[in-house]
């Protein structure tokens, strides 16, 4: 019994690790899309930031400088996206895809040019990565049944960026629903004419939204290359930016449901890993292919059956042109 409980807790622990980049990216996408800018480029921003974090952390020897570089990279790519589709009213989807393709190629090209390891960055040492933080009292509570295990395995022992991701959710919620900036941000995504009529700059509001999105996607990238792994590897985001986008839509563009969706995806992923090759009573061993399709199958089922209508911000995807 104890062993099963421990395994269950460890699965939840893995859920948090896997869901962290999804949560950060979902929050990034949410802020951007609530302001009316579609953000397909989460994947590219995260990838660019992951490369920047690993490269700079290696050169400077500090994960913090790496994180800074990641955030700056994310923000810079957001500005490119914003310049194309806010200032010049370009197609938001095309601009986002362009960022993704650009980063997929540029990271490898720069990696080959700088480190000559086929687009990978050199492996990072202990001191150049975000290491697990052990909370006080972990050892003291070791003997306490249930609670001690929960505290030791689930709450304590993650790296800083996992906690940052969890903290980002209430922060984004508070920012969106309890501040003047948030009210205006939501308004600009629903009805930019009204915001413009009130004398507030639509473009500046949207620029701030995409910059915030770039910052969060940057943290997600740094997590991938300097916390979860110890180096940048070609295309290491492996589609997580798109999954975050799906989670955000699944959560109907709201922070807390989006968090739930990210955790669900993370949990299914963690569970799939653990179910592989295990013979279940009465069923026998489940084929690898089925297990790996499970998260996607469940997504379709949940999206089709239980979610209801997802209403996007009204002005999403439409460039704002002032009336002449």
């Amino acid at each position: 019994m104890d062993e099963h409980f421990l395994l269950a807790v460890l699965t939840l622990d893995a859920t948090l690790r896997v869901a962290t980049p999804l949560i950060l990216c979902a929050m990034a996408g949410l802020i951007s899309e609530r302001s009316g800018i579609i953000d397909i480029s989460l994947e590219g921003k995260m990838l660019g930031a992951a490369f920047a974090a690993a490269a700079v952390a290696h050169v400077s020897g500090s994960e913090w400088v790496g994180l800074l570089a990641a955030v700056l990279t994310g923000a810079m790519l957001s500005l490119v996206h914003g310049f194309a589709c806010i200032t010049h009213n370009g197609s938001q989807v095309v601009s986002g895809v362009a960022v993704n393709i650009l980063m997929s190629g540029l990271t490898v090209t720069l990696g080959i040019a700088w480190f000559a390891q086929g687009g990978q960055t050199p492996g990072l040492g202990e001191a150049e990565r975000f290491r697990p933080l052990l909370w006080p009292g972990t050892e003291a509570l070791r003997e306490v049944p249930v609670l001690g295990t929960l505290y030791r395995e689930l709450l304590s022992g993650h790296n800083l960026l996992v906690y940052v991701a969890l903290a980002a959710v209430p922060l984004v919620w508070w920012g969106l629903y309890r501040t003047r900036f948030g009210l205006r941000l939501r308004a600009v995504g629903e009805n930019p004419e009204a915001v413009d009529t009130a004398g507030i700059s639509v473009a500046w509001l949207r620029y701030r939204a995409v910059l915030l999105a770039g910052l969060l996607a940057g943290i997600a990238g740094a997590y991938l290359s300097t916390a979860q792994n110890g180096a940048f590897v070609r295309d290491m985001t492996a589609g997580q930016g798109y999954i975050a986008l799906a989670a955000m839509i699944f959560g109907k563009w709201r922070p807390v449901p989006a968090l739930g969706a990210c955790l669900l995806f993370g949990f299914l992923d963690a569970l799939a890993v653990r179910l592989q090759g295990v013979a279940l009573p009465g069923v026998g061993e489940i084929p690898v292919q089925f297990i790996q399709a499970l998260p996607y199958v469940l997504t379709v089922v949940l999206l089709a059956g239980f979610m209801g209508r997802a209403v996007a911000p009204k002005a999403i995807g439409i460039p704002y042109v002032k009336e002449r």
Partner: protein
Amino acid sequence: MRASLPITIASAALLAAMPLAAAELSPAVVFDMGGKFDKSFNEGVWNGIERFKTETGVKYREFEVTNETQREQALRRMAQRGADPVLGIGFAQAPALEKVAKEFPETRFAIIDMVVDLPNVQSIVFKEHEGSFLVGALAAATSKTGKVGFIGGMDIPLIRRFACGYVQGVKHGNAKAEVLQNMTGTTPAAWNNPTKGGELARSQFDRGADIVYAAAGGTGVGVMQAAKDAGKLAIGVDSNQNHIHPGTILTSMLKRVDVAAYNVFKTAMDGTWKPGIQVLGLAEDGVGWALDGNNDKLVDAGTRAMMDSLRADIIAGKIKVHDYMSNNSCEG
């Protein structure tokens, strides 16, 4: 017009001389998904042909496949440009190589990890089960928990062969030992997903494993990182990976793709190149286990002696290691 005549003749002579120079040898290699710096399978090949380049001064053409549709194009381009021999790396290039080799019957082709039965193709395959058996026995002798793990890349019979040999080795060392097995995926992307590899390794550590064997190309980088972070041991594959995290990598199952690739180019140069199938096992030093300054503290003298006798027994045929690919099953 008259003044330019000598120049025309000179350039014509130069053009005529070109094929002679090119006829020397212009080998080409097409790497597979994972890339030539995967620290494992492709990198082994790269090491071998780099050695060939430094020793002979003959340059080679190369291409790294990053997308499955590129394989056939890349092989054909190499053959069209007059490359000879053309070396394809990895089982997945077999259909493409077969097609292109038929189109260029005069060009010599070679493939590692798969058999293509054509008169102008040399196929080199390894007995990975024998090498995996050895590292499995070492894992069983080293494990304190009696549970060890295996993480494969793409779920294909070749990787099952690694897994199957490993399981037999572990059980030979400790009949009660348990082997946890995971495959990273079912598409070629599984060769280059270190995040997933790390997560799979952690899940096995959570279930009690203290040594994991990664046969997963670039994905293995994540497995070894996770082992280091968790203070456990990992076993590398294909190339000698002991240096990546000294003290964490128990050993590496060597698959001498470097020697194989080197020999393809070298024999083509000497004129001793032959088409057909080459099977490299323990007896041919095609597979083995790595012991060097990075892991000699992890393997004590008694264990080393045991490994040597196991190796001798397999070569002598006293221990039979079952090959998964002989009947697509790990039993038999």
